[in-house]
């Protein structure tokens, strides 16, 4: 493996922020690489949005250090704002302005001339598939369209670091695919992308790294590794018979007790401790001549880890 020397696009170290008695962010330490999409995963109320606000230079942490592309967003907000693009989870759009005007005005607020901003708006509208709605007022846009407008606003000044708070909520499948392609392109261009979501399946498709946030704290990589290595369920479907008929041959081949293997619709569910164990079992099933039609993890890796972390030993949990 070639070790690439990359400067991390986003660094947070020991970041804390509370609002009165509510400790929204307790201890966050994370790094998001340049040229990669990093997912911020956590349940509702785990502090994702608060963390995003601090990274976006809008909220000062009580303690800890932040760097956006090497710039401290608290000490030098103007400098940081020039290189970061932030898409909030709240869909705020000026109701009386059209999509085109919204992007143009935002561009001008980033210091572009009117002409530059207009050109950039036209480009972004085309890129995000908003052209047909470009001249209707924002109040008539659907949730998904507003979401796209929010993304366009975040991209208008061509930022090196992108902070996207729940960007995929409200998007239709085609728009999600477009978003995924867009994010991969940003990463390929060497930008840093931090994206939060609680829809784990869609996150898993696009991210390179994941940061888990539970009750305001980032989960250490050891704990993530431990959670990831815990027994994970796989679905096995045989081509020629239903689940009840499949239980016996599968159990016999794998040397398991047929009585404890659960079934779900057409699948038999089997737990494996690791990918290696699963691969061995698949080889055994095929070796035994069983017509394996489907052999897949029942939960995505991200979901598996996330659920395990949440159900894991509660530490310092709040009521």
């Amino acid at each position, binding site marked *: 493996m070639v070790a690439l020397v990359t400067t991390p696009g986003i660094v947070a170290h020991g970041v804390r922020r509370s609002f009165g008695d509510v400790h929204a962010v307790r201890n966050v330490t994370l790094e998001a690489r340049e040229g990669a999409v990093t997912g911020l995963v956590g349940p509702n109320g785990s502090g994702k949005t608060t963390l995003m606000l601090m990274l976006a230079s*809008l909220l000062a942490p009580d303690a800890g250090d932040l760097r956006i592309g090497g710039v401290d967003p608290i000490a030098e907000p103007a400098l940081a704002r020039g290189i970061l693009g932030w898409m909030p989870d*709240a869909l*705020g759009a000026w*109701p009386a302005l059209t999509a085109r005007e919204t992007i143009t005005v935002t561009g*001008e607020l980033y*210091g572009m001339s009117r002409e530059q901003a207009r050109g950039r708006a036209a480009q972004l509208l085309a890129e995000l598939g908003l052209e047909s709605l470009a001249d209707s007022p924002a109040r008539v846009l659907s949730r998904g369209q507003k979401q796209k407008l929010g993304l366009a606003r975040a991209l208008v000044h061509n930022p090196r670091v992108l902070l996207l708070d729940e960007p995929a909520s409200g998007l239709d499948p085609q728009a999600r695919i477009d978003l995924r392609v867009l994010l991969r392109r940003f990463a390929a261009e060497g930008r840093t992308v931090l994206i939060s979501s609680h829809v784990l399946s869609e996150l898993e498709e696009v991210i390179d790294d994941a940061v888990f946030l539970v009750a305001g704290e980032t989960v250490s990589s050891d704990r993530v590794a431990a959670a990831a290595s815990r027994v994970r369920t796989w679905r096995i479907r045989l081509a020629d018979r239903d689940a009840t008929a499949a239980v016996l041959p599968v159990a016999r081949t794998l040397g398991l007790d047929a009585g404890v293997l659960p079934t779900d619709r057409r699948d038999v569910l089997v737990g494996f401790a690791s990918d290696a164990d699963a691969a061995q079992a698949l080889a055994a099933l095929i070796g035994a001549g069983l017509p394996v039609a489907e052999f897949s993890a029942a939960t995505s890796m991200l979901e598996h880890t996330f659920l395990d972390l949440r159900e894991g030993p509660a530490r310092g949990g709040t009521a």
Partner: protein
Amino acid sequence: MNLQRLGTIVRLELLQRVRSVAWYVLLGIFAVLLLGVTALAFTVFAAAQGFGAGVYSTVVFITLLLAVLVSPTFSGNSINGDRDAATLAPVQVTLASTGEILVGKFLAAWATGLAFAVVALPFLAIATLGGGVSPWTVVVSLVVLIVEIGVISAIGVALSGILARPLFSVATTYLVVSALTIGTLIVFLLVGSSIRTEVTSSYRVADYSGDTVVCTDEWETSTREQPRFDTVWWVLASNPFVILADATPTQFGPEGWPVDLFGQIKLGVRSTQIAPAAEEVYDECAPQVPQSQTAEEVVASTTPSWFVGLGVQIALAAGLMWWAYVRTRTPARTLPPGTRIA
């Protein structure tokens, strides 16, 4: 303060106002009201010569009144309303600084208030047709009107940055404006009437019963209390209507009275500065022509206060703006209770 970004924020604010129907409805209602007021003022003042001055001053006062009533709704929710609609943070995350956002919103609110003054312009022009309006009166009264609308707009924008709830900040802006307009008047009347001093009046009557008028040396004295408005006249200094009246140069008519409403209010307010005499003497045996100052003498001998009042108002607005700046600054350290950034 970057002028291009400031201009963008002003344009953004105004674009949204210009596209709302309510705004045109208000301007329309305003025009209808002014039409009525102008027509009535013409009938009221028509008897006098050069009656245009009276009509003109009436229209300016009504414009100020309506601007005072309307401006808080246009400015009192500009920051917290945006925060509620989640449109504030997307501006704060751009290169636009907190100062640019605040000043931009203030200028936009001011311009919105001035639109009402612009609607009043044709009526003011009609009023001058009646004659007797001096150019100085026009210039000074319009400048004061413009500044007053600005002060109220600044107070509204600032309070919307200080208080979290739009409804609450609009109401507070109305309270502050009422304190300046009605509150000062109430304080003036109540405090002035409660501070009373004794006046001693002594009089002597002549005896006309005989052939000659006999003056005895018997003086009768009586005492009574009188209110001392001269101790509290300065309370009225920060009243917008008093500022408008006090600042505008007054012309006096042939009978010695001010020709317009500005001058009459100015005379009324200035007269309260003069302390009443502590002793009154009435002597029938040595009749004196009662000395009374003419209106012009009263105005000339008393202290103008409009610049103090205007200074107080501007200081209040500037102080509130500073407080709003501290509250709205990002990266935010403390947030107003019950608010979110986005």
